[in-house]
C-alpha cells in the first residue's frame, strides 16, 4: 500500500462468463476477510452464469429456448428480472436492443448448436412475461442474454461486496465493470485500431462502464465478415471499427446500452440514455483501418 491510511486491497481473478472476471475489494480488514468477501462475490457471478448461460444446457436460458414455445416456463427470479429489463430496453429503443438474436449468433458460430433454425423466427415482441416468474414465447425464437447478463452479474457481485461491508470495490468482467465506494478508479479505454494499446483514460467513481467493439470477434462466415454485434432488426452484423463505451449508474444498463448506441435512431437513443442517466463515449476507427 502506498500510504499507511489506505485500506488493504485484494485483487483476484477467475475465469467466468467466458472471460476473465477481476474483483478488487478494499477495507480495513485482515486479508482473509477480504478474500472471503471476494469469494462470495465470485459465487454471485457464478450463480448468474448458471442461470443465464446459453452454453449450459441446465440454465434457464436453455430451458426457455427448448420449451417456452410449447408451454409457460418458470424461471429463477433473477432471470425473470433480467428479461424484464431487456424487454423494457427493447421497447424504448425501437428494437435496437433485442435478446432474441440467439439463432443468428448460432448460425455465425458465436453460440453452440443451432443446426435447425426455427422457421419464421420472431423478435422480442413474441416474448411474454407471465405472473410467477413464468415466461412464454408466442412464436419461435431463441434468446441469448450475452448482451446484458454480464453487466447484471457485475452488479450482483458489487451488491455482494457492499453487503459484506467492503469500503470500495471494482468488479471487471472482461471490460464491463462497476466501481463502488469512495475510491476513484483509473481506467484505460482500449484503442479500437490497436486494442493492445490504450487511447483514453477516465476515472470511475460509483459508476459502471461497459464497452462494445468488434476488434477481437470479427470472423468470416460463408465468405463474408460477421461479428457478434448485430442489428436485431436487419440481422446485419456491425462491422464498423468503432468502439462504444457507456457510463451508467449500473452495469446492466451500461452493458445493454452500448448496443442501443450502435443501432438505435438518434432521437430514441438520446432519450433512453438521458432516462437511464447514461453517457456514451464513442471512439471512431481511423480512416486507415483495414
Amino acid at each position: 500500500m502506498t500510504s499507511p491510511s489506505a485500506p488493504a486491497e485484494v485483487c483476484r481473478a477467475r475465469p467466468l462468463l467466458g472471460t476473465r472476471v477481476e474483483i478488487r475489494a478494499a477495507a480495513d480488514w485482515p486479508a482473509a476477510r477480504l478474500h472471503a468477501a471476494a469469494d462470495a462475490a465470485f459465487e454471485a457471478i457464478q450463480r448468474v452464469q448458471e442461470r443465464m448461460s446459453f452454453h449450459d444446457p441446465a440454465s434457464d436460458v436453455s430451458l426457455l429456448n427448448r420449451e417456452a414455445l410449447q408451454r409457460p416456463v418458470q424461471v429463477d427470479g433473477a432471470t425473470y428480472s433480467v428479461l424484464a429489463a431487456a424487454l423494457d430496453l427493447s421497447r424504448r429503443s425501437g428494437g435496437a436492443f433485442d435478446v432474441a438474436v440467439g439463432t443468428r449468433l448460432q448460425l455465425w458460430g458465436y453460440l453452440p448448436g443451432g443446426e435447425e433454425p426455427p422457421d419464421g423466427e420472431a423478435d422480442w415482441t413474441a416474448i411474454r412475461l407471465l405472473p410467477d416468474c413464468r415466461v412464454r414465447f408466442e412464436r419461435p425464437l431463441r434468446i441469448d442474454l450475452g448482451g446484458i447478463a454480464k453487466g447484471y452479474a457485475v452488479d450482483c457481485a458489487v451488491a455482494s461486496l457492499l453487503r459484506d461491508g467492503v469500503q470500495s470495490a471494482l468488479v471487471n468482467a472482461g471490460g464491463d465493470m462497476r466501481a463502488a465506494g469512495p475510491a476513484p478508479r483509473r481506467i484505460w479505454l482500449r484503442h479500437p485500431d490497436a486494442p493492445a494499446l490504450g487511447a483514453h483514460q477516465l476515472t470511475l467513481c460509483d459508476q459502471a462502464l461497459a464497452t462494445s467493439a468488434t476488434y477481437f470477434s470479427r470472423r468470416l462466415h460463408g465468405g463474408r465478415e460477421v461479428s457478434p454485434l448485430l442489428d436485431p432488426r436487419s440481422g446485419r452484423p456491425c462491422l464498423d471499427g468503432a468502439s462504444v463505451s457507456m457510463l451508467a449508474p449500473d452495469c446492466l444498463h451500461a452493458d445493454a446500452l452500448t448496443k442501443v448506441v450502435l443501432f438505435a435512431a438518434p432521437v430514441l437513443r438520446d432519450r433512453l440514455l438521458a432516462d437511464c442517466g447514461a453517457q456514451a463515449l464513442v471512439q471512431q476507427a481511423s480512416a486507415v483501418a483495414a
Partner: protein
Amino acid sequence: MTPSSRLLLLPFAAVAVCAPAHAMVYLSVEEAQKLMFGDQALTPLPLSLSPQQVAAVEKDAGVKFFPGSLRAWKGADGYFFVDAVIGKHDLITYAVALGQDGKVRQVEILEYREAYGGDVRNPRWRKQFTGKQHGDPLHLGEDIQGISGATLSCEHVTDGIRRLLSVYDIAIRPR
C-alpha cells in the same frame, strides 16, 4: 454516429497514449494454496506420464498436452494444480483445487499476461510500435486499475481445465 449531449465522440488518439497490454499477478502459488487448502500440508505429486498416457489425455480432452507445464500437489482432502495456457491474445497461469471426488472445487487465475501488439489488425498502426513488439508486457500503471474494451474470451482456460481433469482421471485418480 451523431454526437449529442449524451453521445460524446472522443478525439481520435493518433498515437496511443500508453500501452494497456499488461501483466497482472493476482496470487502467488503459495497464496493460492493457502486460499484453497488453508493450513493443510500439500505434498508435491510428481507427474510422470507415459507417452501412451499423454496420447490418451490429448484424445480425451481434445487439446495438446505438454507434460511439464502442469504441476500437482496432494492435500488431505484434495488436489492442487497449477497450469498455464496460451490463448490468441494472452497467457494465463491458473490454479485448480479438486476435491477427493475429483470434482473442481475452485479455480483462480494466478497470473495474466496480455500479448503485446500480438493481434493489432492494422499494419500501419503496427508499424508505429515496432521495436516494442518483443518487449516484456508492460505492467498496468500504479494508478491504473482496469481496462475497458471488447471482451477477450477465456475459452483456453476452459480447455486447460478439461485437460487437467483428463490428466487426473488417467494418471492420478486412485483406483
